[in-house]
């Protein structure tokens, strides 16, 4: 037990971070039926925003700036790459998303020269604490709680507010929602606002655990968060959260078992397993086909 504990804690923590990113994937998929491949790069970009913001601003101000910039970027990506293709075939939009991901990665590589940037230390959350005789950064402990708080807030937002209702309507039937007078562009933008904000928070937590950011470092956590979203049933927020934790924990436990090469592969093995056993994910709905 004592040997597993650190891995378990680490898993819960990284799982929470995946969950925060996964929500962005799942919400966008729920409304646009689009796998937003650029989401992982927005997550990375949030890391770089922090690097550059913290260089000139006080640390807490830069946290706020990072979140705002990430939101702006998420909405910008939607406006530039997805909005013009709203009536195009789904495959075109998916390709546009891949192209956007490619562009963001290349721009980040260009700006940073491909070098790893030192991630600033955020006081308090980067401090060490000792829990059950095991020393870790405080961020490890905070992450799951923060994740849950944010998710609860999000669920309240979706269930109780007007914009939340509009989002639910849009995810059920895009066109009818539009006909019923819902300003679909606003709803979609809002979805990207929420998704990007959560990705920014996820990025703050994730990179606090690592010393550096590189342009491609976001690809893997992005992909894993995406798998988490699929695992939980893409389109479902509780599914994404649960999926995030499951993926995070199984990943760190694999590392704990000494199979580090497979820590990435195990995620995808889980993906294949769920696709075989329950293709719609844990909480996904079965689509109906009309002839």
């Amino acid at each position: 037990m004592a040997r597993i504990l650190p891995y378990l804690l680490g898993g819960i923590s990284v799982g929470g971070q995946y969950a925060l990113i996964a929500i962005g994937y799942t919400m966008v998929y729920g409304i646009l039926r689009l796998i937003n491949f650029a989401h992982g790069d927005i997550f990375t970009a949030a890391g770089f925003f922090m690097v550059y913001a913290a260089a000139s601003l006080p640390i807490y101000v830069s946290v706020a700036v990072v979140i705002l910039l990430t939101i702006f970027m998420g909405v910008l990506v939607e406006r530039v790459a997805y909005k013009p293709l709203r009536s195009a075939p789904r495959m075109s939009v998916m390709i546009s998303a891949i192209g956007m991901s490619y562009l963001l990665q290349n721009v980040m590589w260009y700006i940073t020269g491909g070098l790893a940037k030192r991630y600033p230390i955020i006081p308090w959350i980067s401090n060490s604490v000792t829990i059950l005789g095991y020393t870790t950064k405080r961020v490890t402990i905070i992450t799951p709680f923060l994740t849950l708080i944010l998710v609860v807030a999000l669920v309240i937002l979706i269930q109780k507010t007007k914009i939340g209702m509009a989002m639910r309507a849009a995810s059920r039937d895009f066109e009818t929602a539009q006909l019923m007078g819902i300003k679909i562009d606003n709803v979609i933008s809002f979805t990207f606002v929420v998704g990007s904000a959560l990705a920014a928070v996820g990025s703050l937590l994730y990179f606090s655990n690592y010393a550096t950011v590189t342009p491609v470092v976001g690809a893997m956590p992005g992909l894993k968060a995406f798998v988490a979203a699929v695992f939980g049933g893409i389109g479902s927020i509780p599914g994404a959260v649960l999926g995030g934790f499951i993926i995070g924990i199984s990943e760190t436990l694999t590392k704990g078992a000494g199979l580090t090469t497979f820590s990435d592969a195990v995620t995808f093995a889980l993906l294949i397993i769920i696709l075989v056993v329950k293709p719609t994910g844990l909480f996904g709905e079965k689509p109906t086909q009309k002839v």
Partner: protein
Amino acid sequence: MKRNRIPQFFIIVGAFLLLLAVVLMLDNVPGVPVMLLIVLRKGAIYALVAVSMNILNGFTGLFSLGQAGFMLLGAYTYAILTVPVENQALVYQRYPNGGIGFSVTESLGRVLGQPGLLLGVIICLILGGIVAGVFAYLIGLPVLRLKSDYLAIATLGFAEIIRAVVQYEKLGPITNGSNLLSNFTNFSNFHLGSLKLDTVMPFVFAGVCIWVITLIINSTYGRAFKAIRDDEVAAEAMGINLANHKRMSFIISSFFAGISGAMLAMYQASVQATIFKAAMTYEILLIVVLGGIGSISGSIIAAFLFVGSSEWWLRFLDNTTVLPNFNAKLLFAIIFAAIVVSIVFLVVYRQNKAQKSRPEAVGRGRKILSLKLSGVITLVVGTLLLLGDLRFLISPDLQVPLLRSGFRMVVFSIIVMIVVLFFSRGLMGDRELPDLFRTRHKRL
């Protein structure tokens, strides 16, 4: 109709042989830029992968993102089977008794000389394809029943898994773990007399494979694939078994991706799992999109353009450049401004014309400019670029701004995004090269 078809066949074969002759010449004449040869070799290989991806994405309407994974399987299968026995100790340094203890190409080569070596290469290429095809079959079993999104997700995941698996320490004696596999039979082992065949061989292999793919696409099975792409429900109602045909298409696509992976290994003369990342699949997908989804000739042309611009023509964007004097700077600034102005003018002019001729715009009074959002953005970006140009001109600096390592890929991905957003049909749409010379829509 009938009379027409035989000459066309000969024209194509003749053109291909001519192309091979030119390529053979380029390979053996001194003074040909080495970059050109690299682009031709890599372009031929990428053309094959792009076409193989097009079978699935363009002709069957399935969206797979596993191309890099299947290429990896092909590359490793080929490499493992062809490392000569005496090189195995060297290649598998970290694994005593590593390697499979024989080499297909070497054994055949010893018995039959160059033809045997060639035979060995062909056998191993095909085996590489078969291994990829078998894996495609296995993945397809659960996933092809689902909506196409899930195929994309599962294949993407598979590519990541397979990359981790071949690097697994315990498989090291066969796959060499995370180390390079090298010293296996490659294109430079072949000569025709004293002629080098380094560039001709990829052309021949890719050409034959693409020819076979074209035959498949135009066969009754290819037509069934297109029916599935156009309307799955109708295809099923007309007696086409969806599961079988989708699986068939997926396996064919992966088979040829495997072969192209093996060719890539031959071209590089070494192979390592780390290069077969998702980014590679994305690049191939972008080639398919640039060429036109559903166009074989489009994919081929786009592959060469893609490889050419990313490896060669846009290279200068990656080098910091200092101009020698003010005159050169003036010239540079003027040329740049001219390019920007003409592009902006073209876009704005065309859009303005199109917008004004729309029925709802007629009779709404005279407006000097009537633009969509994209036109306005072009105008703004153009103005900013001109201002930047001006600033560069009046500054004392002689170094061209922005040009440094990484800028090539930025420009490149912007071009790709422009194509995706504004020219979504790509170079060729779903037409083929011969269609361009015909006026009416007439096939068969």
